């Protein structure tokens, strides 16, 4: 009888033993479960597949940018790592902003240890090469220009759990203004690329063209989310980005600072004067602003003029001439002016933008002197004006203007053409005696939400009549491409005000500039190269305002000996001669020239040149200078098909782990499980001991 009991008890022992094992197993299983949930929390984007309960991870793009600055040129290398976190092959498409005058001239695709150099091709042809490679299962990448400041990288056939790196290089001319130099790097996610400015049709087209997975850094637009029907999307982190600037200014530095981001600066070991290394502080990503870095030469070492040359193939040379006109002589009484202020009061300006615009306008009006005349035009669906025509800025009229400004409210659509017609209409021209000496300026305050850009450019170009058009971009997302271009066609400047704290500072700077139109009707002549200069850009020199340099790109057979600048300095004849001996060798001037040539052709198209002519010219230039443009793209194709490479890949990945990547250690002990197991065994032993006493 007791035997039976024993048997039953020993059964209990075994059951208990199994319980321990079961606990262990479930503990393991439990650990795995947690891991899965955690993977989701990393902020990856999950995409719905055709099956209702299956999700696929979107490729992750991390960006690493290094900006090398030598002399007047900034060269930026951007590495985009496309990682496929899923189990199937996928295509990644990544849209990203670049500075508006960026010349994209190199692309390399890095697959494991193979590097495939991108080739420049006519856009359609490049697309065909890419599509074909994609359908044949080869790895391929394509860099296209969507707008001068928006590009896409497409990468086909990214293997499961593997990474393809795309290296892009672009160069740009530094901005030199008010005695300081600056470089700008657009941060991937910025509200400036919300649909308000991004042309919807273009983005839509982008989605349609690529049936693969699409990663566009516009993840903060609600519309797009619904388009992707992304599920369980936790607040998405910014794509990882690291940014380093290697600065070789070429002169001793007084000051160096970043406008919106925290950076750390140090002097590199080989650092002479003017050399710095600047790193973006990874923890302080202000993703709502572009990265802008300024540096200033030490007083006394500020350059007045600079001339650089680059020897090219076949005897052609490229040159860059930069001259800062004299700054002190602006003390002369400024010429009288006629000012037309145009303010956008459309619904899109509602809120802070409108408040900023009104403040800017008040600021502008307050600076008028009785010698000036002015008018204010407001527009939304239609345009209306304060006076019938420009009136003298007498104190009582300024009071009326102030009332007028405070009554302005935003409402309705944006019909810019009417306002432009009014502002540039001949009847608004000054008709009194001495009108020749008068500066006629139009200030356009808007967020630039317009659709008929080309039509507007053409109108400005054809009806300017010696006036100058200044654009002021307001709000967090102005259409800066439109406003910069209209200012260029209007021979004025573009000012961007992103923050309401900046209104006073930036408007002051602009109006000081406008009151002191330094150099007009500028002509540049080069001596020592008669008949051999091939080309100078820009063909029509813009007016120069206080703090702005003359910047001329050239292509030539031989180095000129002298440059002669002639123009009107504060409405009086002025000329300056610069000896061009000893021009410093500088890489990248050819690329710069090519990029500016392409831009000048695009401008011609905007003012009505034949589309085919423009297209052919730009394709030629793109191929010659190896540049991405509206009509040329960079494409790279891996000659070995990806599918067949799977075996090689595995080996490669193992190699990589040893060579380039660090192996992770085993970092847990079984201390706890041993202690738990031990404790359980002790408890069982107790149990058995007590049971023995009971039965005995």
């Amino acid at each position, binding site marked *: 009888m007791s035997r039976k009991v*024993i048997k039953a008890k020993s059964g209990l*022992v075994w059951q208990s033993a199994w319980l321990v094992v079961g606990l*262990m197993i479930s*503990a*393991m299983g*439990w*650990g*795995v479960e*947690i*891991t899965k949930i*955690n*993977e989701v929390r*990393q902020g990856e984007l999950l995409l719905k597949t055709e099956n209702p309960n299956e999700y696929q991870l979107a490729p992750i793009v991390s960006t690493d940018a290094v900006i090398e600055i030598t002399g007047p040129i900034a060269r930026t290398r951007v590495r985009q790592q496309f990682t496929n976190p899923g189990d199937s092959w996928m295509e990644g498409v990544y849209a990203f902003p670049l500075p508006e005058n960026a010349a994209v001239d190199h692309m390399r695709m890095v697959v494991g240890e193979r590097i495939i150099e991108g080739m420049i091709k006519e856009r359609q042809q490049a697309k065909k090469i890419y599509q074909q490679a994609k359908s044949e299962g080869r790895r391929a990448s394509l860099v296209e220009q969507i707008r001068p400041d928006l590009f896409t990288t497409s990468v086909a056939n990214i293997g499961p*759990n593997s*990474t393809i790196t795309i290296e892009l290089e672009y160069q740009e001319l530094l901005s030199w203004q008010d005695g300081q130099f600056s470089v700008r790097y657009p941060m991937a996610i910025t509200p400036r690329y919300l649909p308000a400015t991004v042309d919807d049709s273009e983005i839509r087209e982008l989605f349609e063209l690529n049936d693969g997975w699409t990663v566009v850094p516009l993840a903060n637009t609600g519309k797009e989310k619904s388009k992707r029907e992304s599920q369980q999307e936790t607040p998405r982190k910014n794509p*990882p980005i690291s940014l*380093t600037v290697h600065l070789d200014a070429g002169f001793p530095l007084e000051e160096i600072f970043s406008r919106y981001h925290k950076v*750390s*600066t*140090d002097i590199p070991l080989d650092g002479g004067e003017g050399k710095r290394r600047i*790193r973006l502080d*990874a*923890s302080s990503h202000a993703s709502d602003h572009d990265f802008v870095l300024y540096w200033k030469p030490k007083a006394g070492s500020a350059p007045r003029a600079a001339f650089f040359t680059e020897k090219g193939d076949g005897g052609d040379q490229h040159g860059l001439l930069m001259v800062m006109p004299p700054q002190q002589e602006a003390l002369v009484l400024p010429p009288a002016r006629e000012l037309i202020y145009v303010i956008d009061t459309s619904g899109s300006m509602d809120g802070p933008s409108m408040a900023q615009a009104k403040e800017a306008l008040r600021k502008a009006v307050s600076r008028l002197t009785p010698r000036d005349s002015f008018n204010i035009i407001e527009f939304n669906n239609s345009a209306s004006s304060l006076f019938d025509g420009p009136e003298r800025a007498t104190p009582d009229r300024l009071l009326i203007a102030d009332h007028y400004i405070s009554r302005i409210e935003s409402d309705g659509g944006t019909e810019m053409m009417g306002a432009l017609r009014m502002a540039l209409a001949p009847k608004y021209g000054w008709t009194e005696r001495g009108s020749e000496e008068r500066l006629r300026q139009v200030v356009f305050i808007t967020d630039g939400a317009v659709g008929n850009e080309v039509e507007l450019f053409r109108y400005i170009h054809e009806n300017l009549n010696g006036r100058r058009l200044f654009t002021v971009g307001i709000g967090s997302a102005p259409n800066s491409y439109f406003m910069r271009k209209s200012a260029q066609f209007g021979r004025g400047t573009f000012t961007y005000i992103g923050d309401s704290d900046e209104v006073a500072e930036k408007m002051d700077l602009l109006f000081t500039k406008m009151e002191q139109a330094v150099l007009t009707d500028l002509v540049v002549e080069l001596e020592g190269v008669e008949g051999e200069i091939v080309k100078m850009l820009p063909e029509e020199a813009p007016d120069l305002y206080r703090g702005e340099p003359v910047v001329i790109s050239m292509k030539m057979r031989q180095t000129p000996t002298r440059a002669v600048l002639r123009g009107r300095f504060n409405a009086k004849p002025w000329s300056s001669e610069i000896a061009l001996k000893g021009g410093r060798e500088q890489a990248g001037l050819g690329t710069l020239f090519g990029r500016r040539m392409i831009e000048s052709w695009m401008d011609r198209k905007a003012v009505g040149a034949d589309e085919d002519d423009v297209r052919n010219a730009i394709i030629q230039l793109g191929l010659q200078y190896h540049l991405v443009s509206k009509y040329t793209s960079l494409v790279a194709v891996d000659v070995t098909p990806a599918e067949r490479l799977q075996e090689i890949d595995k080996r490669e990945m193992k190699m*990589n*782990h040893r*060579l*380039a*990547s*660090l*192996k*992770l*250690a*085993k*970092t*847990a*002990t*079984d*201390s*706890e*499980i*041993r*202690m*738990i*197991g*031990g*404790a*359980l*065994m*002790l*408890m*069982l*032993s*107790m149990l*058995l*001991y007590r*049971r*023995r006493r009971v*039965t*005995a």
Partner: protein
Amino acid sequence: MRGRTIAAVVLLVAGALLFWSGAWIQIKAVVAQGMLEFAWGQTVISGKPVKPWPWADHWPVARIGFPEQGEDFVVLYGDNGSSLAFAPGWNIRSARPGDEGVTMISGHRDTHFRLLEGVTVGEQITLENSRGRVHNYKITNINTVDYRMANIPSNSMFRRLVLVTCYPFDAVVAGGPMRYVVTAEQVI
């Protein structure tokens, strides 16, 4: 009857041994740090590797501090199991502590590097190298990865510190594929 007594005794002994072996790991981790501390002091003074006890296979190469956690550890050469039992270990393929490049230090999730569970981005980490020079780092990223697909680049132009421990922290069984990776960049 007797069989059951024997079973009880066997279970008692085995259980005690098993429990002790688990507890020993914890004790070793704590006690070793004390002995390593002395060896580290000698290392910094002499500038040469000093073994913490005569039969040790490893020697201290750095000291890592977590000011916000109020903890610091001596780091041993190598990151295999024999060194990790006593201290966090430096991956010998990575940059030497304090040198330019990526320095990788691993630790057990249930002993020294348990504290990684509590660190946050922006926290400071200090690393003293064998020459006594202290570099400051700031945590820039915390991530979990599967070691089978982890790709941690070994080169960087700057001083980067990568701290690794197992994940999840409260998994009972060792040997899972997930790792908790804390990346810190040098603050100049």
